[in-house]
């Protein structure tokens, strides 16, 4: 009984004990706060990086022969039947992706970028409607955006026919096919629905590996914009009808990749990639991995959107663990504080230790008495820290705004990041691990002085007044 009673009494009577608890509070709160914010960045990053990508992307290298020396097959109908037959797949869409340039005209010459000048690199994507809506987030990304969003989406007139020219469009000569642009691209080129825009591209001759002829260009009419949230995509990507693009480029194979949506991405991603790769390789649409000396390269033919954006996601993930490790050092410092405070206390309480031993306390009891003092500090510090950390993470935006307005320093620059708020996600397991870590760390540091207390000779402890 005396251990409970005395440890609480010592904790209450000695103010320095609170310093240890405060140290742990700060460490735990900081760790939870930073890791929540990093998780928030990671999640926002994932949401934005995904852009208009589907769950899986099949991108065969159509120019490289298979093991039997024939080129991969390109039959659209059979390919789509095969993909849709996979039990994990809920939607699939063919795409023809290529690069081109936007050719400026008189109207937007004033707005041209001073460095990039007249040219703007464009990622041309030919799509099928409505397949595309089932395989990617394009449908949602073409809806009107929130009023406070930096780049406003101009929706198309008819979602089922997004490439149909707007009703007010009066063609200059032959009617042109429609084009949907990224919102940032449309804003920087000052393009609105009804405006005509000229695209320029070059094809590569598969046989000679050289540029085909003089290149090709075609004029399209803007029908609307989209916003995926991924800056590069919204700055560079344009959507046109797949047949129009194939026609413009003079391609015989009118697709280059397949976007696939799964029923449950997180659950099925590994199995889906595996089964799709096998069935597509068996049918000769992609390269088999076995027996191929460049199989690592061909792994990229069927992959998840995360594989495609792996570098970016990996970087944020890396930062998160780095921050965690660095902040854990704060915890170690807090542990040292507890160690110092308890060591001082054991020295101060030598006489008490002697008295307790004389009254019949076991050395192990004395040890646990001082361990409990450490324990109280750990529990108190960790629980207050967890509370502060979680409340702080939930209200980080308000806290940042208050700090910024009170001290006049901009802590979070909203123009640098894509988001207009500081993202934070509280991970329950993360918080639990931090709490456990804090308590374990404190107890480890408390063990040394507690052990010293237990080894104290009661005679020496009682000898001096």
């Amino acid at each position, binding site marked *: *009984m*005396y251990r*409970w*009673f*005395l440890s609480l*009494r*010592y904790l209450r*009577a000695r103010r320095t004990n609170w310093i240890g608890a405060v140290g742990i509070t700060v460490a735990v709160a900081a760790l939870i706060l930073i890791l929540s914010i990093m998780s928030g960045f990671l999640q926002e990053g994932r949401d934005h990086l995904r852009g208009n990508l589907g769950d899986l992307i099949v991108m065969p290298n159509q120019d490289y022969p298979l093991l039997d020396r024939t080129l991969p097959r390109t039959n659209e109908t059979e390919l789509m039947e095969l993909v849709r037959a996979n039990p994990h797949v809920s939607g699939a869409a063919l795409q023809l992706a290529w690069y081109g340039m936007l050719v400026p005209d008189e109207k937007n010459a004033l707005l041209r970028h001073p460095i990039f000048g007249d040219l703007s690199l464009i990622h041309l994507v030919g799509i099928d409607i409505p397949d595309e809506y089932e395989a990617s987030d394009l449908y949602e990304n073409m809806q009107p955006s929130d009023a406070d969003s930096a780049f406003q989406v101009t929706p198309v007139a008819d979602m089922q026919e997004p490439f149909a020219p707007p009703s007010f469009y009066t063609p200059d000569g032959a009617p042109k096919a429609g084009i949907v642009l990224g919102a940032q691209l449309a804003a920087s080129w000052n393009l609105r629905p009804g405006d005509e825009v000229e695209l320029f591209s070059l094809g590569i001759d598969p046989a000679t590996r050289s540029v085909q002829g003089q290149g090709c260009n075609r004029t399209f009419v803007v029908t609307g914009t989209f916003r995926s949230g991924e800056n590069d995509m919204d700055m560079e990507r344009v959507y046109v009808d797949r047949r129009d693009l194939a026609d413009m480029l003079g391609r015989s194979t009118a697709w280059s990749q397949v976007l696939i949506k799964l029923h449950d991405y997180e659950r099925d991603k590994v199995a889906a990639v595996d089964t799709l790769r096998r069935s597509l390789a068996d049918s000769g649409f992609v390269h088999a991995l076995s027996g191929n000396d460049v199989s690592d390269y061909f792994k990229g033919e069927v992959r998840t959107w995360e594989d495609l954006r792996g570098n970016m996601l990996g970087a944020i993930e890396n930062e998160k663990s780095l921050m965690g490790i660095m902040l854990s050092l704060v915890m170690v410092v807090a542990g040292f504080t507890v160690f110092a405070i308890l060591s001082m206390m054991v020295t101060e309480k030598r*006489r*008490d230790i*002697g*008295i*307790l*031993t*004389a*009254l*019949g*306390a*076991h*050395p*192990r*009891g004395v040890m646990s008495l001082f361990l409990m003092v450490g324990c109280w500090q750990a529990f108190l510090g960790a629980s207050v820290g967890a509370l502060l950390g979680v409340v702080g993470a939930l209200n980080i935006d308000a806290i940042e705004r208050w700090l910024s307005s009170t001290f006049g320093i901009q802590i979070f620059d909203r123009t640098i990041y894509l988001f207009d708020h500081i993202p934070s996600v509280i991970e329950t397991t993360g918080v639990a691990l931090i709490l456990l870590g804090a308590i374990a760390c404190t107890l480890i540091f408390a063990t040394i002085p507690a052990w010293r207390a237990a080894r104290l000779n*009661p*005679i020496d402890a*009682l000898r001096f*007044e």
Partner: protein
Amino acid sequence: MQGTQDSSNAAQRTTPAPAPDASMLLVGRDIRRSFPVGERRLEVLHGVDLELGPGQRISLMGASGAGKTTLLNILGLLDRPTEGEVWLDGQEAWSLTTRERALLRNASIGFVFQFYHLLAELNALENTLLPAMIALPPAAYRSRKGEFEDKAAAMLERFGLTNRLKHRPGQLSGGEQQRVAIARALLLDPPLIIADEPTGNLDSATGERVLELLFEEQESRSTALLLVTHDRRLAKRCERVVHMEDGLVQADSTLTMPT
């Protein structure tokens, strides 16, 4: 009367001794204690034999450095003798485990120190309750808390500390602190009280009153008392006076108690 045992008898023993007389409460046999001083060892106790029956009152006298406190620590199970045995309540204390010895100390010995040795963070009542808190785990203590508190409070009130129960040691006089220490030593009704110069730090009048209290309690409870003192007058009030000199018992005289 028990024990006018000559130390030379014990010194001649060569084979392990059988268990001592079961009627004895405390038996020390051939106790030797030496301490390392530099590369040599300094022997403080040279083979002390001492027996104490239940309810007996012994005073241990001797000049400073005679080994009184060392002997007391050994008999109080706080210090291990270099050689020899200490039997308490029929058990050889130093052959027990640390835990068993701690339990034995808790149940069988009450200490009264010269410097009171109360815990500064606890009030008088809590200090008195400490042996019970050490003896029992939390659940068992809580179920008997009222009983112990009543007992401790009654004792402190009898000792004249009625208005001092909630006072911390720093708020009590020396005499009051020593009375709290005596109450603490008596709480679990141990068969043996060990008092190391309990009045050494008090003025004579206060010391006298504290001692009266200690003797009264000892008599009414039939507790054995081992008292270390410099004061001859005080020693005369004990049944036996043991004189120590240079780490040996020089004289062990039985007195006739004044009636």
